[in-house]
Every structure is written in C-alpha cells, then in structure tokens.
C-alpha cells in the first residue's frame, strides 16, 4: 500500500502563506501568554508546593480549599480518574520562607486538624526559590545550547542557509508548542522542557532528510534552479516524512492515553511538537533556505530567461 504515489505538489508556492499562518498562530499565542502574565510555569520553575492527596472517601475540592491556611492563594482541584479520590493542592512560594518544606507541613497539619477526611500524601513536590531560579536558568540555557549545537551541526554538514532554515523551523516548533501548551492549560514542567528539547532534535531529523535529498538531487541536476530541486526533494521524501511522523505520533498517543497523569504534559508536548515539526519541515525549513539563498542559485538558464527588471 502506498499513500503518496509520486506526489508533485508545489509546496514552495505556498511558502508565504505558510509563514503567515505560523506567524498568526505564534502571534495569537504570544498575546494569550502576555495577557495571562507569562508562561504557565510549573512548580519546578516557579517554585512552590504541589501536594497530591488521596482521600479515602470522595471529597469535594472546595471543602479542602476552605481548610487551607491561605485559600485565596492556593489552587485546589480534583485529579486523575473520578474513582481515585485524588485532590491536587498547589501553593505558590510564600514570601518569607527559610525552609521550603515548612509550607507543606503547615498545610498537612491544617487539613488533619480540619477533619476533612483521612488522606495519604501520594506525592509531594516542593521547590524553593533558589532551586526554582536555578532550574529556570538551566532550562533556558539547555534549550539555547541545544539549538546552537544543532545549528553548528547542520552548518557543518550542509551550508549556512540550510542551517538557518533548520533552526528557524525548530525555533518555530518550540514556540508553537509553547503556545498550544498555554492554550490547553498545561504547566511548563521539567518533563515538558525535556520533551521540548527532544522535539528540537527530532524536528531537525526530517529537515536533514530533505536537505540530504536536495544535496543528492543537486548533484544529479546541477543546472536546475534551487526552488525546483527543493520542491522535488520534498515531494520525493513526502511519503517517508508523513509516515515516520505518523509512527512516532502513534507511539506518543499510546503514552498520552495510557501513561498516567504525571507524563501527560510531556506526551502532549511531543504530540504537538511532532505535528508542528512535520509542518515546519515541509513548509518552513525549505522556504527559509530558499529565501535566504542568493539569486544565482536559480541557475544560469533561468537567469537568462528572466527579463531584467527595469
């Protein structure tokens, strides 16, 4: 079975529209992010406390919230499957805290005293301001250096314009993923950043396959204009691009549906990243590479045919 039998779509014809779509999505997303006061940082990066409590009997989250020492600043929500009786309590960094775990101890004591029901603490995640800041800077640094490393690698293997094209596409993927994470209400946690970094590596995969083909086709058709060569390369590898994205997507869907709540953010990031990555590979990377390439790349034959502009 083949899904694409010798496709011949002029993808590059749509490059400006594709770029416009991307800019629109990212723009709308940035607007949402700014209006919400920044990226939705998970406790790993913002600092604070997250308690996952399992109650013996079904408990309403408002009951739990009212038992907290500082209900106004706390986020309480039901968690997991309905039968689990799990409640998530999230507390921001409290202003004056020497010991980061003091807040959690306070909350646990308050809940026990308020007699909201028997509960066990399934998990506790406490990040003080020092560590939170540490992780923020590490996370940013890791993303930037990963992008940088990949840029250098592609420059080394191909040429600078291709490298820039790949990096713009990858950067685009990261931005689009962040936008969707915000829209769907996922926190940026350590796991999510790990998934983002994976996407940078993965998204570049497809791009490399196309550039490989471009290089091979250029060798075989030296006088052909770059745009036509790139278009043909994208079409030739289309089958492979869609299918590999599809298989990776399938395995991540399994993770998203069956992997549990802790990994949900990571799985979602990968899902969006795979789609964005495929889209950017087909439309963005090649487009940028063409746009940035000098006009001579169009080949002497074309140059001769194109009338000089007055």
């Amino acid at each position, binding site marked *: 079975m083949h899904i694409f039998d010798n496709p011949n779509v002029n993808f590059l014809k749509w490059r400006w529209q594709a770029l416009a779509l991307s800019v629109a999505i990212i723009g709308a997303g940035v607007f949402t992010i700014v209006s919400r006061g920044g990226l939705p940082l998970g406790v790993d990066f913002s600092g604070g406390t997250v308690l996952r409590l399992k109650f013996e009997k079904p408990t309403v989250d408002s009951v739990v919230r009212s038992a907290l020492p500082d209900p106004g600043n706390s986020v309480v929500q039901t968690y997991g499957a309905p039968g689990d009786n799990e409640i998530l309590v999230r507390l921001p960094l409290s202003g004056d805290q020497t010991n980061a775990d003091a807040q959690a101890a306070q909350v646990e004591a308050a809940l026990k005293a308020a007699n909201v029901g028997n509960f066990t603490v399934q998990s506790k995640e406490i990040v003080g301001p020092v560590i939170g800041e540490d992780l923020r800077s590490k996370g940013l640094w890791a993303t930037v250096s990963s992008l940088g490393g990949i840029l250098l690698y592609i420059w080394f293997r191909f040429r600078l314009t291709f490298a820039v094209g790949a990096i713009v596409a990858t950067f685009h993927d990261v931005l689009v993923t962040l936008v969707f994470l915000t829209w769907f209400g996922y926190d940026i946690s350590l*796991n999510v950043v790990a998934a983002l970094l994976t996407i940078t590596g993965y998204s570049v*995969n497809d791009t490399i396959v196309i550039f490989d083909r471009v290089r091979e086709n250029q060798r075989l058709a030296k006088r052909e204009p770059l745009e036509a060569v790139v278009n043909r390369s994208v079409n030739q590898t289309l089958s*492979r691009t869609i299918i590999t994205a599809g298989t990776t997507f399938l395995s991540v869907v399994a993770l998203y549906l069956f992997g549990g709540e802790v990994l949900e953010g*990571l799985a979602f990031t990968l899902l969006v990243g795979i789609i964005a990555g495929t889209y950017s590979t087909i439309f963005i990377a090649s487009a940028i590479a063409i746009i940035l390439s000098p006009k001579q790349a169009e080949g002497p034959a074309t140059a001769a045919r194109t009338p000089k502009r007055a």
Partner: protein
Amino acid sequence: MYKNLQWKLLVIAAVTGLAVWSFTPPSKKVKLGLDLKGGVQMVYRVETDDAIRIETETASEQFHEALKTDNITVGGVKVNGLLEFQVEGVPPASEQQFRQLAQTQLGQSFDRDSNGTTHTFRMKPNIAVQRRTEAVQQAIQTIDRRVNELGVSEPIVAPYGTTNDQIIVQLPGVQDVNHAKSIIKNTAILEIKLVESGPMSDEQTLLSSHGGKAPEGMEVVPGTSGARGDTTRVFYLVKRVAAITGRDLRNAKPTLDEYNTPAVSFTLNNEGVTKFTRVTGDNVGRQLAIILDGLVQSAPVIESRISQAEARITGTFTQQEAADLSLILRSGALPASLTVLAESTVGPSLGEESVRAGVMASLVGLGLVTIFMLFYYKLAGINAFVSVSLNLVILLGFMAYLGAVMTLPGIAGFILTIGMGVDSNVLIFERIREEMATKKGAKQAIAAGFDRVLVTIVDTHVSSLIAAAFLFQFGTGPIRGFATTLFFGLASNVFTAVFVSRTMFEFILSRRSAGSTQQISI
C-alpha cells in the same frame, strides 16, 4: 548464498542473550528511580556561615584563655560579626608579648590590624573558603552516617548544584519521611558546661547577684523545666567554654535511667575521659549542665571525681527520641545548620502505579506501531517488529548493565525510541521500494536500499543524540533517565535497524530458491 549469514545470526543471538541476561530478573537488575520506587529526595543548603562563626568564636575564646595563661591582662575580647574579633585595651608594656602570642596562636588563620591598644583579627579569605568547603564535606559525611544508620537501602548523599553549599539526599523506599527528615536536620550539638548558679525561673533573678549581667567567660543558658511538653524555661549561668563536647564522645546508645524512663548513655573517648576526670575532680559539689542544642537537659551534681568513661543524659525522652538522639550523637554533630531548598516525595503506591502505566503505554505503543507497519509494508512489517523489539531488549540490557536508573520520563524515552526507531525501518523500506520500482530484483533492491540509507540514518540520529546529550547535562534525576533511554535507544537503533534488519531480509531470501528471489513482501 549470503556470505557470513551464519556469523551475523550468531552475533545477533549473542547480543540478545547478553542483553536479556543483563536485565533478568528485572526486579533485581533494573534500578528504579525515586518516582517509580517511592522515596524522598531533598536538596539542602549548608549554612556555612554557622561554621565560620563557630570558628571565629572558638578562636577568640581560646586566644583569650591563652592571654590569661600568659598573664597578659586585656580590656576585653569581643566578636564583631562573622569573620572578625577585637581585643581591646592591650597594655603597651605587653605589646611585644601580645603580638608574639597572636602570631603563634592566630597567625595561620587570621590577619591582624592594630590601632593603638585595639587589635582587630580578621579571618583570612582563603581560610574562610577552606572552612566553608570543609563544613559542606563534613555535613555530607555526617548525613551519610545518619542515613545509613536509618537503614535506608542505597541512599545517596552528594554535593549538588554550582554554589558549593548544596547537598542532595535521596532516600529510596523510605516510608516515614518526616522521621528521616528530622534525623538528618538535627544539629545535635552536645556540650557539658560547669554551672555557676541556677536554675532560676528568670534571667534577672539569675544575674542579680552578678551585677545584672553575665560575668566574663560565662553565659546564660535556658533549660527545660523537667515535665514533658512543658515549654516554661529555667535559666542557668554556666561557664562559656565547654568542658566536654560531642567530639569527645566515642559512642551513644539508648538506655533506661533509675526511674525506668528512656535516657541516652554515652561513652567518652580517651581525651574525653581525661577532661571529664579533671572537671569532676576539681569541682565536686558543683553542677554540670548537660546542654543539647543550647538547651539544658539536666544538671546533675558532681558527687565525686568520675574517672569512668560512661555517663548519661536524662530528660523527658520517649523511647524513639532516645534512640534517635543516640543515632545522631553517634554520627557526630552537623557543622552547620541545614535549610531545605527543595523536596520531592513519591509514595510507593504511586510509584507502582507509574510503573504499570509505563509498561502498558509501551506495549500499546509497540502494538500500534506494529499494526501499522504490517498494514503498510505487509510482511516486511514483521521485520520492523523484530528490529524494534530487539532494540528495546538491547536498550533495557544496556541500562541494567550500566546501572542506569529507570525513571518515569525514562519510560517515555523508551516509548519514543519505539516511534523513532521504526523511523529508520521506514527510511529503509521506502528506499527498497524505490529501488524495486526501478525493476531491480529483491536482492539488489535490498542491498542498494541499505547501502544508500546508512548515511541518512546516521545523520538523523546524530541531531537527536545531540539533543539527548544536552538534556543529560541539564537534567538531574528523572530527566537524566529520559536522556539516557533516548540516547542508548537511538544508539542501539542503528544496530538493529541496519544490521539486524538486513540480516533478517538476507535470511529470508537465502531460504528461497534462486528463481523466486525477485520479489519480497514490502
């Protein structure tokens, strides 16, 4: 027909066997991270300022004692903050002697700044740095001893972060997290000091006979009133310099006192015994205050010179508290206090749940991908299934062999390896299809397909490997698990997707007669 086919099959069997042997049985051979096993992880900051302050105070006190011994009378010795202390009122006549003594006693660690009869001593910067580093190392060793005594299996106590004052403690499988935390953080500074007067119910009464303030070389220390849970304090006036400290202890263990209440019995080392004998011999009839973390626990009267090595701390301990205190005294005092910077606790039931979810997701992922490959590439899909499954087996074997820790994100990396691993198979199969479309026979198509595609496979893996490497650098714990499975999964994928897959094709073709080698199901 195919050269070396037997040898290739042997290699594959050997590698598979080795991998399986490495991770069987999984419950013993595969190391689970805290998020899968349950347990607690803490990040502490060692307040190295404490250690510096203690050093400065001790140096000033010892210097003051030395001055008295040498009959140099000075106005006063005053500690001025963390790093410096001042000696005032040094008589000019004794100046020469003073300077010599200062050089001998303090020259190594302190710089002197003299102004008239006032001499200021400031800790040398490099000494301060050294003391800070030592404090952190000592804290690590002390916590390590305490954690080992708690009976935690495979704990980790190690330096952390870039500021040189952070420690990470990992306690897998710990159930009573609060107990463990209290044991770790307890500073447990034991001091035995000679009592001048007391106990009195308030400070003023205590000091009234001394002119309203503590005489030189003495200090006021609060104490417990005796009843359990009673927070009212009494006050003692004690000699500042301790006769015995925690460092003079050889051992400590829980015991019962004469009223059958839990107590802590401790034995002293040789130096401790000498000091103890002298103090008790010189001070029969007076009280010795046993002070724990700045609070007097009890102040028994010295009835006679005690030359034995054993003594007791009594107080209002429960059995657990006596056991805990003995443990902590045995491990030595923390050189500085600890501040909790971060904590991560996972209950064991959650850990088990996560493992189940991870395994389920992996199987579903593998299943979905295989169904697709069978559907799209027909029987060649079996080839893909075998190579991906083998990839996972080798990956697990690698991790078990290296002792790498499997975390929940690590399982995600596992699943990602399935998806990305099959990537390579797709690349190869597509190439083979292309080659067959140019009317080549199966044998040539397969050979050409594999040859052409090796470069691309390596290329596509390298960029993901770069990302995984940066991930490993940036992450700790769970993220490192993710980076590790991704990295080794991709690495072993080159082996399975190329070598194993090709061998399987060759094997299948070699079993057919010459005429029918023109077609394969792909």
